[in-house]
């Protein structure tokens, strides 16, 4: 086994990177004819979820209700909500589009998306629940000085939320043109306002239920499509694959791995961002505080992993179904009826077109509505986690310690409105920009800042405030700066000449995450202050609570 072999093996990890590129970016789309069925279905979804918000609003009285829905969510419900947060419109349309274009490679991509979940299940879920109350910063700052750790956690969370949000808002604008045949601008305002109503009035309860309803609709719709496809082939996957190989331009190549490998460093790097970034996303982490105890927290991740895995198997079948159904009917699904010109609305529309092929206009409307609702729900979750970072980590823990629950709730609502307005403004500002790198950047920042700080503060007794904060900021800044220097931003976004990018890899994670861990370790062991000594002495008590759950915050505040 030569070095070259090993490098190319590692390079295979790059396939995961492709998933992000494909998943994050829906590309520039062409406005299609107005689809009234889809608009009406989406309207029904909004009406129903706003009714739920109204019911939830009556129960959202304290800050605890706002952040955690009072802690009354079961593990099964929370698992669906987490899956809802994770199964974005881009992953549904992007991965099925990839399978449609490349076959087997799409399956490799989707597997990459799943690998972060065992890490969360085995190492984080229960400790998070036992130590935390409202935000992951409660966990990271458990035995540390509050101010610096909270300021760090809030900064990192807001950066992650901002990039993730821009990608979603731009995606919403592009999708509304293809799915509903409406203007880009409508999407920004619609998503902004409806999402604000969910979060502002219904807090975490409403946001969770929106996520659950959307997850059920998405899983139901995808199941229907996959079953419809298999039905065409008498439930024989072999027959489906055989037909796909027969009609696809790449023929038998779609049944094996292709050559989507770039350089090895980018490959490892993307793999790391995928695996550990998930465990640093604030809108995912906050879901662990909505369940009553560690037992339910574990169940949530098990259910989330189950639904997400099941969903990826469905997208694989859907992608193959799109191959067999769409290619044979170019007149209806391809631009100008010519396969060479590509799918109407772009390559990511494979699943949407398939929904029409198997279920007619009504089902097309349903899937379109679900795809758009998906973005809405993800944006609501992001906004809530951003607002908690401001009101709980900055306001209530730094600027106005000892404020009342009412004051904190008020600030969280103001923060929600500010974030909602910001989302609309950014969505409009970035309309013509290339946002393909943004979700990847959010994951890179998450695995280089939140994750190392969380991991070290919970599992390493010698970690100190100074180490955590310095290391966390190093990771955060490095992740952002190196990403700016990579070709996907330096050349594609900042319009510098081709080849001028000074950071040669696709993903900064391998450098920024290692730097964060190293800095946390180095600064912590060099820290001999009295504060550091005190913090190390507090570790056994923290460990006791994180392992046994004794003294864990009972999420139900009433």
């Amino acid at each position: 086994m030569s070095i070259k072999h090993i490098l190319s093996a590692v390079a295979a990890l790059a396939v995961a990177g492709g998933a992000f590129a494909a998943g994050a970016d829906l590309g520039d789309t062409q406005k299609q004819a107005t689809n009234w069925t889809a608009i009406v279905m989406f309207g029904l979804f909004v009406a129903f979820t706003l009714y739920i918000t109204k019911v939830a609003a009556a129960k959202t009285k304290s800050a605890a209700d706002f952040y955690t829905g009072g802690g009354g969510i079961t593990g099964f419900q929370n698992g669906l909500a987490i899956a809802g947060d994770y199964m974005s419109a881009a992953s549904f349309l992007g991965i099925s589009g990839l399978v449609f274009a490349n076959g087997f490679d799409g399956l490799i991509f989707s597997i990459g998306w799943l690998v972060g979940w065992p890490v969360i299940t085995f190492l984080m879920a229960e400790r998070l629940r036992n130590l935390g109350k409202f935000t992951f910063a409660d966990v990271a700052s458990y035995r540390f000085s509050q101010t610096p750790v909270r300021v760090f956690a809030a900064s990192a969370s807001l950066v992650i939320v901002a990039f993730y949000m821009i990608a979603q808002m731009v995606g919403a604008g592009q999708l509304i043109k293809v799915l509903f045949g409406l203007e880009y601008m409508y999407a920004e305002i619609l998503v902004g306002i409806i999402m604000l109503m969910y979060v502002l009035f219904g807090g975490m309860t409403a946001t969770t239920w929106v996520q659950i309803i959307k997850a059920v609709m998405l899983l139901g719709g995808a199941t229907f499509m996959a079953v419809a496809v298999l039905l065409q082939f008498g439930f024989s996957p072999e027959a489906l694959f055989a037909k796909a190989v027969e009609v696809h331009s790449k023929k038998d190549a779609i049944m094996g791995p292709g050559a989507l490998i770039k350089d090895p460093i980018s490959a490892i790097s993307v793999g790391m961002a995928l695996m550990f970034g998930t465990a640093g996303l604030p809108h995912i982490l906050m879901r662990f505080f909505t369940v009553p105890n560690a037992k339910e927290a574990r169940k949530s991740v098990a259910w989330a992993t189950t639904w997400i895995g099941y969903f990826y198997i469905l997208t694989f079948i859907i992608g193959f179904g799109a191959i067999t159904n769409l290619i044979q009917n170019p007149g209806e699904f391809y631009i100008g009826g010519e396969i060479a010109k590509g799918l109407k609305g772009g390559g990511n529309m494979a699943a949407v077109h398939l929904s029409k092929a198997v279920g007619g206009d009504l089902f097309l409307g349903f899937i379109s509505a679900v795809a758009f609702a998906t973005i809405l729900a993800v944006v609501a979750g992001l906004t809530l986690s951003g607002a908690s970072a401001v009101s709980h980590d900055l306001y209530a823990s730094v600027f106005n310690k000892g404020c009342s629950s009412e004051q904190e709730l008020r600030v969280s609502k103001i923060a929600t409105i500010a974030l909602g307005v910001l989302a609309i403004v950014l969505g409009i500002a970035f309309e013509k920009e290339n946002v393909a790198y943004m979700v990847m950047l959010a994951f890179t920042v998450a695995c280089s800042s939140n994750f190392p700080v969380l991991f070290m503060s919970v599992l390493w007794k010698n970690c100190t405030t100074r180490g955590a904060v310095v290391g966390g900021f190093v990771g955060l800044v490095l992740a952002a700066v190196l990403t700016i220097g990579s070709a996907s931003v330096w050349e594609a976004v900042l319009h510098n000449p081709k080849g001028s990018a000074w950071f040669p890899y696709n993903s900064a994670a391998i450098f920024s995450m290692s730097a964060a861990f190293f800095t946390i370790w180095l600064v912590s062991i060099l820290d001999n202050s009295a504060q550091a000594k005190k913090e190390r002495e507090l570790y056994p008590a923290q460990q006791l609570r994180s392992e046994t759950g004794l003294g864990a915050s009972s999420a139900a505040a009433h």
Partner: protein
Amino acid sequence: MQDVLDRITKNPKFHEFIAMRSRYSIIMAIVSAAIYYGFILLVAFDKELLAKKIGAGVTSLGVPMGVGVIVLTIVLTWIYVRRANTEFDATNEAIIKEAQK
């Protein structure tokens, strides 16, 4: 409350228990990572193996293996959660009860 905590901290069973549980979680994490990276290594080293037909038809070995990785990830998660929610939680309860006497 404080003396309960002290008693747990002094109980060797508690330390044995958390060491055992940590070991188990780390092993599970390594196993799940090994399954994933093993699959990825195959993608890199042995594309032919993954593209190989499993029968007379077009279905390649890669398809059941890829789906297998997804299914195994889910199964491992449930194995861990089941054990943690029954056996581990029961031991944990017992240690806490003992300290509260």
